């Protein structure tokens, strides 16, 4: 019980810090904080698959990207631009991809699944990159930021501060939902699948159904992250569908600690801060030390930062 209380106190502290952040930080770091939250959400969504169900997805950029483009479609197609429509549209976009991936997840295991997710995200990348009439091709799409509007109650344009709070709200809510899910019996079954799929199946669980739900969940939240990114930055570009984004997400998961939800968020923050710091010295070669650290962590600290800290704190 005391650990639980400790956890919620910690949670409240972090939340308070994140809420206060945009008020005290300079412009650059304000945006940075918001971005960490968005990538954190993406990392959490990926953790559902990698950390909890044991399915390595190398294609999360597809969910993210389609969430982004889905939001773009709504913001460009409907006047005046509606925030909620953008969210719904983005989720639908990501959801459609998730359905496909979910189908394959039930028929393929391990490496075959990972390679397929990789190929999938590349298919979307190529289509988006070359279908210039619809997607803007290489240059992507840019659009206006929608206002925060509840019909009949309020309509106000976002300021960097209020946008940050909106993102914080969405991400926090997502975190609480995902936390509830992973701690539920459903979440326990997912972990059982990761530990020993054959045995879990033998006990009688319909593995396929669990995997489908896991993929849908993961895909939708990843798409939500894409929507938030689109709203924050007011553009959608094929770069975000490219494999590199998927790769970075995997890095967040491993470095932060798979299967912990909070870990990947910390991993995202850690990576982005590392990148910021290292690129002062290494410029674009920051990935060399980061890549080395990552590989070493895969080999020696597979439980990630969080797992490592946990061990230190509970000897």
């Amino acid at each position, binding site marked *: 019980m005391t650990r639980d209380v400790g956890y919620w106190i910690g949670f409240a502290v972090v939340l308070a810090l994140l809420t206060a952040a945009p008020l005290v930080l300079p412009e650059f770091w304000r945006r940075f904080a918001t971005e960490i939250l968005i990538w954190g959400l993406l990392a959490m969504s990926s953790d559902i698959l990698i950390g909890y169900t044991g399915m*390595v997805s190398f294609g999360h950029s597809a969910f993210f990207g389609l969430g982004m483009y889905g939001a773009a479609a709504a913001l460009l197609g409907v006047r005046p631009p509606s925030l909620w429509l953008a969210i719904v549209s983005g989720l639908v976009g990501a959801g459609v991809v998730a359905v496909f991936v979910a189908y394959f997840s039930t028929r393929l295991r*391990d490496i075959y699944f990972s*390679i397929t997710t*990789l190929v999938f995200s*590349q298919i979307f990348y190529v289509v988006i990159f070359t279908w210039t009439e619809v997607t803007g091709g290489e240059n992507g799409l840019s659009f206006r930021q929608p206002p925060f509007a509840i019909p009949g109650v309020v309509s106000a344009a976002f300021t960097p501060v209020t946008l940050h709070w909106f993102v914080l709200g969405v991400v926090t809510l997502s975190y609480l939902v995902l936390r509830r899910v992973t701690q539920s019996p459903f979440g326990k079954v997912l972990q059982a699948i990761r530990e020993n799929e054959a045995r879990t199946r033998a006990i009688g669980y319909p593995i396929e159904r669990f995997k489908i739900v896991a993929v849908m969940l993961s895909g939708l939240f990843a798409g939500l992250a894409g929507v938030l990114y689109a709203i924050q930055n007011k553009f959608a570009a094929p770069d975000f569908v490219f*494999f590199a984004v998927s790769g970075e997400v995997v890095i967040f998961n491993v470095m932060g600690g798979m299967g912990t939800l909070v870990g990947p968020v910390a991993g995202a923050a850690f990576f982005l801060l590392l990148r910021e710091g290292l690129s002062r010295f290494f410029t674009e070669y920051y*990935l060399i030390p980061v890549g080395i650290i990552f590989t070493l962590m*895969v080999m020696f600290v597979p439980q990630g930062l969080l797992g490592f800290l946990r061990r230190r704190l509970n000897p």
Partner: protein
Amino acid sequence: MTVPIPIEQILVQTVNGIVSGMILALVASGLTLIFGIMDVVNFAHGELVMLGAFVGATTLASTGSFWLAFVTAALVIALFGAVLQASTLRPLLGRDPLTTILATFGISLVLQKYALWQWGPSARKIQEPITGQFHLFYLEYPWYRVATAIFAAAIIGALWLFLRRGKYGIWIRAATQDRIMASAMGIPVPLVHTLVFAIGAGMAAASGVLFGPLGGVTQTMGFDFTLRAFIVVVVGGMGNLGGSILASIFVSLLEAYASLVVSPAQAVIASFVALILTLLFRPTGLFVPTPK
């Protein structure tokens, strides 16, 4: 509104497809050998191709000899592969495949950026050793392309012979089929693993050098090869050497034909579709005789 495609174009694309297919086969056979013997899906395989191309380009620039560049690149990258495997992958033997794919992914990041650091952002050139063309239907077709296909085939043939005869061939095949009994028979399995990885790396480097005159040498070329090689290895059957060679040609032909109707950038989707269909209907591989 169907535009009939002249038969000559199809035939030319067939030749093109076979040429690219043979280069891809060099890459894919290394990858499938490595997977077959140590269950490692080498995400960094494409970067080995890229590094081979760069070493080749640098050697060519300083010595002027294509063949010296070719041999140097293959040997250097083979050696590098051996060191890489012994230091990072050997300790991971026995851990779940998730770990090795993540580790090789991390390595691919490092290698890609290392190339950027070592050779700078601009592309390199590798001059083809055989200039001159011959008349192929309506085109002046470069001899070099044909030579590449033949040369790649020769290398694969040599690999096949090596595996069929000789002590190391037996060691490799035994260790691939049953790692534990091979060890119990006195075969130094860890050494065999390193040997196979080195061979795979060397072949990847070789294909990088061969590809150089055709497609250029850039730091980002690796990912494309990794992706294609993965597709081919799955379509051909993981661990199946003959299958991956056939699949390389098959997939390359598909892409070549596809680029008759769509742009080359979009033609890659043909190989993606081939993968998806294979996974749906014959997941053990299109060219595997009986699905197990």
